[in-house]
């Protein structure tokens, strides 16, 4: 398999962007299920007519303003309404303009949505999706560029989705809308124009994919980290004849540890590459799980490559220094392969 090839489905196969795949997922969900409503800021009239990055473009014309609802700037109430309407039978898809702004809605997300099913003795499911975008590489500075997925993945009861291809964007958004669990669906703001084939199907949460097969070292990466890892793998092959296998987890919760284990058992080495800062992050978590599960297969210590532990600066020359890069992945892979104990 290559980065952008997927299990085939019956429907149309064509090339499109992640943005367009997301729009189609929302359109199809709206059409197929009358319980689906979209709630968020500037969903219908911004830019060319749909959301901060244009994902909801045209949907209000198809589904009506009672189903695609522009809200005031009230993140806590937007997510609260998502929880309350989901508990009573709707399937709301909430859009938060930037994941940074989701910090204003942590109570409904963390204390209400994530807890309700368990805390209330299985009476209430919360089939809500919170769509938002994270990540930098867009010159948007400290309050519009964070990669906060670990915060959500740390909360028992939330599912966390991090798609990197048009097909995954479509399939996983449909899956997130279909599941009865509350889901944080993190798009990457610098990847809306990434193109690839679109195979329409409803995906499965909790299944990673091999984005690039290889034999010498496993790199686990998603979104911008994945883009950089693919670039690094090319360099490592051309200059060092090192064959990197890249795993895209696609969802952090549930996490497909099986595909990671299986890969590490073959390669004996692992680097986790993510745009989020390293300290207390999901890379360290996977590294510890790999150390526990694959100890006898490991030739080297698991390592994490990440963005620098600091706020994202504005100026492009500074931002570039902070974010994860292909060069830092290349360097780390070389270091790991020099440090093997066999």
């Amino acid at each position, binding site marked *: 398999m290559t980065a952008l090839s997927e299990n085939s489905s019956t429907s149309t196969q064509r090339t499109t962007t992640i943005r367009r795949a997301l729009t189609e997922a929302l359109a199809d969900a709206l059409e197929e299920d009358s319980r689906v409503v979209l709630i968020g800021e500037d969903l219908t009239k911004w830019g060319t007519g749909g959301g901060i990055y244009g994902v909801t473009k045209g949907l209000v014309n198809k589904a009506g303003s009672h189903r695609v609802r522009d809200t005031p700037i009230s993140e806590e109430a937007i997510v609260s309404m998502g929880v309350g309407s989901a508990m009573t039978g709707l399937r709301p898809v909430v859009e938060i303009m930037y994941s940074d702004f989701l910090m204003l809605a942590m*109570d409904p997300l963390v204390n209400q949505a994530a807890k309700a099913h368990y805390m209330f003795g299985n009476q*209430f499911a919360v089939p809500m999706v919170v769509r938002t975008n994270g990540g930098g590489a867009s010159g948007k500075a400290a309050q519009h560029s964070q990669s906060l997925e670990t915060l959500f993945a740390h909360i028992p009861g939330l599912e966390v989705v991090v798609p990197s291809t048009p097909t995954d964007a479509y399939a996983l958004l449909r899956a997130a809308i279909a599941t009865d669990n509350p889901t944080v669906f993190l798009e990457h703001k610098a990847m809306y124009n990434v193109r690839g084939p679109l195979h329409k199907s409803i995906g499965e949460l909790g299944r990673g994919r091999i984005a690039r097969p290889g034999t010498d070292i496993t790199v686990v990466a998603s979104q911008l980290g994945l883009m950089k890892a693919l670039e690094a793998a090319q360099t490592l092959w051309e200059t060092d004849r090192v064959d990197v296998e890249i795993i895209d987890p696609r969802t952090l919760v549930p996490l497909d540890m099986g595909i990671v284990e299986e890969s590490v058992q073959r390669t004996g080495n692992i680097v986790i590459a993510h745009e989020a800062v390293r300290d207390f992050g999901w890379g360290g978590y996977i590294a510890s799980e790999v150390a526990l599960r694959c100890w006898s297969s490991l030739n080297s210590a698991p390592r994490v490559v990440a963005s620098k532990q600091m706020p994202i600066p504005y100026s492009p020359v500074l931002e570039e220094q902070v974010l994860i890069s292909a060069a830092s992945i290349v360097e780390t892979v070389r270091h790991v392969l020099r440090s093997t104990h066999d």
Partner: protein
Amino acid sequence: MTELDQGLSAYRQMALIRDFESRLPRFAEEGLIQGSTHPSVGMEASAVGVSAHLRSGDTVASNHRGHAHCLAKGADPKRVLAEILGRVDGYCQGRGGSMHIDDKQLGILGTNGVVGAGIGLATGAALRHQYLGGHEVSVTFFGDGAINQGIFSESLNLAAIWSLPAIFICENNGYAQSSRLSDMVTDTNLTNRARALGVEASRVDGMHYWSVSEAARRAVEKARKGDGPSFIQVDTYRFLGHMAGDTEIYRDRDEVEKWQERDPLRILEDDLISRLGVKEETLRSIDEEVMRQIDEAEVFARESELPDAHDLRAQVFAIGQRGGADA
């Protein structure tokens, strides 16, 4: 329902809540209640006066002082008490406790441990009711402390612009835990704040059942017709402390005693006898029936098993995995 029937029904519910809540401090002293439990003794007219106008499809989002809201909506005192004692027969099998009691069948979206959170959930439920096009209404009960949370302003504004069938009941008992309302806002007439957000607002004597009931009737009727949200400031008082162990150094005994002279149960009783011709022995026999009912609830809850830990982590998610790599 005649006024007499409604009055007698209200008296029964208020007496039941009074008896139920009055026993909780003893359970706490016995060590049978862990954590925080917030009784609502003195505030019964609010829950009962509002719920008198609700139907089965209507929803209620409650707060930390929420047993009365559940009981008034029809929750079984046996199962409410079992939940407060952390037993397997509780509404949430002992997972929720006092601050997380719900009954989906009755439309109770939970008591809630976060001040103001129910306001947002109720706004979501109201959106659902409006969207599906029925005539259900969404009610939320919260205290005077909650009005200073951002979610209050955000939600009332949303309910107003979308004309949602939401009824916001602010039970003003004068204190946010130990903080006096007049120290935390410049204008203790909270209806002004609601009106500023575009929500029709009224203020009632929360010790007078009929006043609460009449305001709630109007608000519910309005919401059912699709004419939008209402806010009701219910001025009331809690006779007991905020929770077990409250030293109550923030208020004078005189103040408590002055409010106790306006006991909502006695005010309703006097009205039933003097105006509606109810015999006192009728009310005393209701008291006895209620006492027996709560006695039974107490036996039921005490005898209910503690939860089995073998499926401790089951149902963290509604479907699929339990979560975590060690699942």
